[in-house]
């Protein structure tokens, strides 16, 4: 059972590293430009996974305060809130800051993806192929 606890406490970090390396591998070693762009997308989302994992908190709920009428016998968070906003306990809510940062990172990711695809279309118009080795051959010939 020891391995299992380690796995649970580390799985997200390992997964982000694997994804990051998959993306980096595609960006460095792949030959096709669109494959590289796909790799870039994976590479960026890996970092997002890492940040969201930082923000996770055991036994806490989503970062939206319970508001409005409170049901009878709700969870811990609800009970704390029954006495007004002063009773909000930080332990009961997931850390919102990494989520905010990652909204920005996702948007940056899609912006980069758009520009990269635009460039890839231009490259294809110029050389008629997306394979880097074929483009290099064409450049060497003239």
């Amino acid at each position: 059972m020891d391995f299992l606890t380690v796995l649970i406490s580390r799985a997200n970090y390992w997964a982000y590293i694997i994804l990051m390396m998959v993306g980096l591998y595609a960006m460095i070693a792949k030959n096709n430009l669109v494959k590289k762009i796909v790799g870039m997308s994976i590479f960026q989302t890996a970092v997002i996974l890492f940040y969201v994992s930082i923000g996770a908190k055991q036994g806490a709920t989503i970062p939206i305060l319970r508001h409005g009428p409170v049901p009878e016998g709700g969870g811990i968070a609800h009970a704390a809130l029954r006495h007004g906003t002063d009773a909000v306990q930080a332990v009961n809510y997931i850390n919102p800051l990494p989520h905010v940062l990652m909204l920005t990172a996702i948007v940056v990711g899609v912006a980069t993806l758009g520009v990269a695809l635009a460039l890839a279309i231009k490259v294809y118009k110029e050389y008629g192929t997306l394979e880097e080795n074929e483009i290099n051959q064409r450049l060497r010939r003239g």
Partner: protein
Amino acid sequence: MIWQLDLIILVLVIVCAIAAINVKDLLSAAILLGAYSFLLCLLWAIMGAVDVAFTEATVGAGVSTVFCVSAVFHTTRRTTD
């Protein structure tokens, strides 16, 4: 958070990522990237990052895939790796 679900989705995410960069067809790669984004969105939803999951579902799985498909449509599906 249910850790069994977490692990299963993590494995699926990695499988999707590896498939997306290894498949021999760029259109499939674009679709697999969409699937990858959608699985990540599920992962974030069960980790409690609802806003991030929502954004990833709309931006990553939705619009990015459309962009990729339209770029592939104007270039080529062919790839050697």
